[in-house]
């Protein structure tokens, strides 16, 4: 298994399958009364978060603890050394000097995990960098789709919304295309530049046109803070044209899955009733995130997946 996980570009379909299969085996740990494996005992994992995040950090922290790793959390908030002017590189070297085995990094600057991986000996896991990638989100999404559809090959997945600014979209398109899925990006050209066509995805502007044919409707969060950039006229118009409401849900296949990386804007990209409908697997995504992150830590920090003996 690879040393760092920086981008979905790195992973072949076989490697993705290994990660998802391992996650499936590990998932059972969560159902035990004692939810802990000794695999990473004595290893140290650091969550280095330059962007506020609750769910991803907690998910990684829990994943590492379930594998018995020691976990330290470093948040670049107003009280940290970063606020005192410490550079990214100095922070990285400080962690290195303390002997961490893996650094899970979230950063607002695209490429920061790439840079970090050149400075330290520890494994680097990208937990979201700028508008670039969020590979563990893509892997947990693939896992969630695979739970419902045995084969990802040929699966029709619509990714709807702000592809331009979304690291979730980039990682998901790469992962889905690698697994042979048929990806359609839906939204206005202000959010889906034509260059996205080079990723192997189709581009469409009309959500209604594809409702009947898709197996998965993946909704991206509308970043309200981007409203000032004039990417579309209003949230109301966005919701009318690209929001998934119950009327649109009713036109889709009965087995369709509705997915969202969270946090949701109910009433904008997703209707409140849709998010709570049986077709929505949004909470499964969260639960599966834990298993996928355990799988990655397990595989990258020296565990084994072939024989499965450590799970017994």
């Amino acid at each position, binding site marked *: 298994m690879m040393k760092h996980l920086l981008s979905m570009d790195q992973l072949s379909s076989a490697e993705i399958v290994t990660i998802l299969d391992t996650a499936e085996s590990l998932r059972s740990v969560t159902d035990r009364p004692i939810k802990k494996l000794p695999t990473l005992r004595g290893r140290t994992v650091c969550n280095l978060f330059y962007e506020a995040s609750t769910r991803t950090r907690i998910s990684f922290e829990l994943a590492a603890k379930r594998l018995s790793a020691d976990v330290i959390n470093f948040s670049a908030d107003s009280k940290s050394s970063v606020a005192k002017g410490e550079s990214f590189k100095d922070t990285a070297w400080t962690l290195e000097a303390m002997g961490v085995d893996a650094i899970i990094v979230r950063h607002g600057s695209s*490429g920061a995990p790439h840079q970090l991986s050149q400075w330290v000996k520890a494994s680097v896991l990208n937990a979201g*960098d700028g*508008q670039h990638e969020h590979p563990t989100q893509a892997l947990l999404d693939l896992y969630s789709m695979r739970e419902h559809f045995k084969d990802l090959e040929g699966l029709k997945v619509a990714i709807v919304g702000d592809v331009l600014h979304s690291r979730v979209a*980039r990682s998901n398109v790469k992962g889905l295309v690698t697994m042979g899925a048929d990806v359609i990006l839906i939204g206005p050209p202000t959010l889906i530049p034509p260059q996205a066509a080079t990723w192997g995805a189709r581009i469409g502007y009309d959500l209604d046109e594809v409702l009947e044919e898709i197996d998965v409707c993946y909704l991206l969060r509308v970043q309200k803070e981007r409203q000032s950039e004039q990417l579309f006229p209003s949230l109301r118009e966005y919701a009318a044209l690209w929001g998934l409401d119950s009327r649109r849900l009713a036109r889709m296949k009965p087995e369709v899955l509705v997915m969202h990386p969270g946090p949701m804007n109910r009433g904008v990209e997703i209707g409140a009733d849709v998010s709570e409908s049986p077709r929505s697997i949004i909470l499964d995504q969260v639960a599966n995130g834990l298993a996928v992150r355990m799988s990655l830590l397990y595989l990258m920090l020296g565990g084994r997946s072939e024989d499965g003996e450590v799970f017994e």
Partner: protein
Amino acid sequence: MSRYLLRGGRVIDPASGVDERRDLLIEDGVVASTGATLDEAGAEVIDVAGAVVAPGLVDLHTHVREPGREDEETIASASAAAAAGGYTAICTMPNTDPVADSAAIVEKVWALGREAGLVEVVAAGALSKGQRGEKMADIGEMVRSVARVRLFTDDGHGVQNSLFARRVMEYLVTFDAIYAEHCEDEALAAGGMMHEGERSMALGMRGIPSEAEELMAARDIALAKLTGCRLHLLHISTAGTAEIVRRARAEGVRVTAEATPHHFSLTDAELESYDPNAKVNPPLRTEEDRAAIVRALADGTIDAIATDHAPHALEEKDVEFQYAPPGMVGLETSLALTLTELVHPGHISLTRAIELLSVGPSRILGLPQGGPLTSGDPAHVVVFDPDGEWTVDPARLRSLCKNTPFVGRKLRGRVLHTFFAGRLTVRDGVVLAGELV
């Protein structure tokens, strides 16, 4: 003053149409004589057989950091880097702190250049006070100062307000001075970190579209036609801008243009490593743009190769890509990149290379440089081995900053000696700073 006899070099002097094996005698700051075989007559003989002897290089676009950021580059250190790169003149950009928008600042820059004594330091002045694009800088006072400013620019920023651009152009006609533009529509480019295209989309970085440059180039050409002002377009980087300039020149508009070594050598593929040293403005463009810039250098659309030498301290560059300032140093690699990327592959001749690095920029600035190297002409001379291989090593760069993406790159073309007004400033590749002043 010493006498030097350069023995057996290939003299390439586009201004006199010469390209032949000749000796060159330098005496009292001027070329005393040239000929097939000159008598030593008490001169110190420097054997330059196999090397090219050409007029000293002239850089239209150098960022010194004095005044304001002397930790990054002083006029003396930039002069040493320039001499090492074969230059005998540099035009310093006004975006210092304080901005060179008054006679006092440009005179200081000029005086520090004289003190360093390694190259002619030609101060450019700002177009607007503080380079804010609102009020005219003290243009006439800078023209009339001892610094004799001829080129005005708000480089680092394009002039956003078209009316202001028009007014300054009109005013500059008084002095037949040059309006030099950093072509960038800031609204279109806002937040951009690299060229906008497939790569920026894949890397998740906000892009700067080619159109941000092309719109302003087209506007300025229209205004130059309207006003009759001399226009110079700094660091043009796209196929579209090259075509806009080509058409304007065919129409007879008084426009000149420069391109940088990094824009004819590199593409946005460099950004895939997220190396902050490859971050520059205008950004590295696509292969198609790079090839178009090479064609425009070859066919005469572009007049000059200019470095856009932009030193940045290590602590400012060695950060997240997004936070790094744009710019790279270039004075010490420009000749070698021109030879390696343009001459050796056959895109341009050696003569054209000298035109682009010396004659063209010297004419734009109206300097008594760029040749001809005939009897009685000032002896600004570079001697280089066009085939000499070397590897770019930050430790050996004279610039105080080492921010270049060419580190470790093997280049062909090495400066041997530089003469500034008949004095050796570089000998066998070593800057002779100690002997000066």
